């Protein structure tokens, strides 16, 4: 049962990754956008290093989240544009495997973008983040999972709406406030030199958020995909 779910999930993820590797329409846009965001922040805030250091955790997460949102929006719109939605629904087995497959793909793309943003961020803003990478990666991963879980569900929904590009962020950001707050605060403490133990309450909140929505979103997904 579980093996079957994993196999189908893997098939779905593999399909999305293969499409992406061939067409490269999502990840290229995400990476370029991420670099642009870091670039624009610099113009918006000026070159003062002290100011930048203070707002760094927020900037980092804005770059992560905006880039992530860009990728999430594509995950179901592409299916719709290519008229593949019906075929997606015809796949045998539980709808949950579609959800988890899409989710895994979305997390993968977002993590890839983050892996580029993080070093670029350290270089462009002169922050010494290299020793902190493992703890930052943990926070980034926990935040990304929660954000993508709700995001994948909402992307499936908004793909069928008018004004779909606008609706995804409008629904996604209010619902993910706990993730945003938790990730930014934890990142702030880590950049200030605090260890993981100092941010354990935020990590627990992020973990709790992830668990709750990893259970609820696949259940809700069944109702979203119904035709």
């Amino acid at each position: 049962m579980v093996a079957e779910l994993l196999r189908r999930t893997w098939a779905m993820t593999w399909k999305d990754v293969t499409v992406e590797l061939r067409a490269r329409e999502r990840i290229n846009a995400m990476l370029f956008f991420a670099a642009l965001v870091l670039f624009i922040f610099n113009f918006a805030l000026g070159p003062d290093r002290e100011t930048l250091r203070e707002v760094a955790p927020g900037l980092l997460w804005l770059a992560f989240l905006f880039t992530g949102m860009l990728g999430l929006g594509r995950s179901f719109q592409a299916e719709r544009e290519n008229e593949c939605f019906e075929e997606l629904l015809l796949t045998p087995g539980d709808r949950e495997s579609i959800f988890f497959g899409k989710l895994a793909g979305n997390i993968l793309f977002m993590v890839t973008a983050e892996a580029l943003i993080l070093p670029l961020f350290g270089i462009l803003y002169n922050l010494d983040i290299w020793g902190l990478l493992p703890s930052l990666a943990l926070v980034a991963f926990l935040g990304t999972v929660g954000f993508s879980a709700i995001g994948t569900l909402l992307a499936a929904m908004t793909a069928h709406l008018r004004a779909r590009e606008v609706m995804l962020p409008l629904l996604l950001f209010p619902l993910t406030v706990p993730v945003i707050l938790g990730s930014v605060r934890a990142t702030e403490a880590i950049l200030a030199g605090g260890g993981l133990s100092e941010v354990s309450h935020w990590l627990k909140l992020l973990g709790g958020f992830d668990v709750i929505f990893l259970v609820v979103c696949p259940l809700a997904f069944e109702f979203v995909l119904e035709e």
Partner: protein
Amino acid sequence: MGRGSLATRVLGGTAGLLLAAGLYLGLVVVPPDAVQGDVQRIMYVHVPSIVTAYIAFFVVFCTSILYLWKRDLRFDAVAVSSAEIGVVFTGITLATGMIWGKPTWGVWWTWDARLTLTAILFTIYVGYLMLRAFAEEPLAGARYGAVLAILGFLDIPLNHLAVYWWRTLHQPSSILRPGGPSVASDMLLPLAMNFAGLVLLSTYFLVERVRLERLRHRTAEVRLTRGRRG
């Protein structure tokens, strides 16, 4: 079906009378607050509004679950109507809170825990209403709306935790707290009357709004059958 039933009109009338009496008591009869002065009187609108809004959002949550379970559009009509009511009262809460905050705290807005939470709640349910408005197909809109309402409601405790860890400045609750209310007893009466008045008023709005929604469904049906014949 052109007008509401007698019972609904009585309900609306009672709500109006209660609110008028509660406001008269609160704004005219009861003496001003010892510390805050007349500004405090805004509480008679502010506090009942937010409680009413929370009740409305709870109704949205319950009827959304019922809709997904039973697939009866009447539940969906209640959900969407109740969401509108909740958004209106959350808006009133935010507005009255700002008007109170300026003379009391010296600022219109501050990112205190409770203000932030109310603002988040407002954005979630405004998003819900936009989702309903942008749905291409009514049945899909009903399903999406129900899913979003359930997510939004589950999100509230997490938001609560996150925002409280982040910051706290709002004065603590003065009625629902261990050791009994700290509000003077002559202030409690208008507060209770306004609360009852707003709950009745919301029920009245809800009944009328649901009736409107059902008329809308019927119009759509009639149009459809006429189209088929013609």
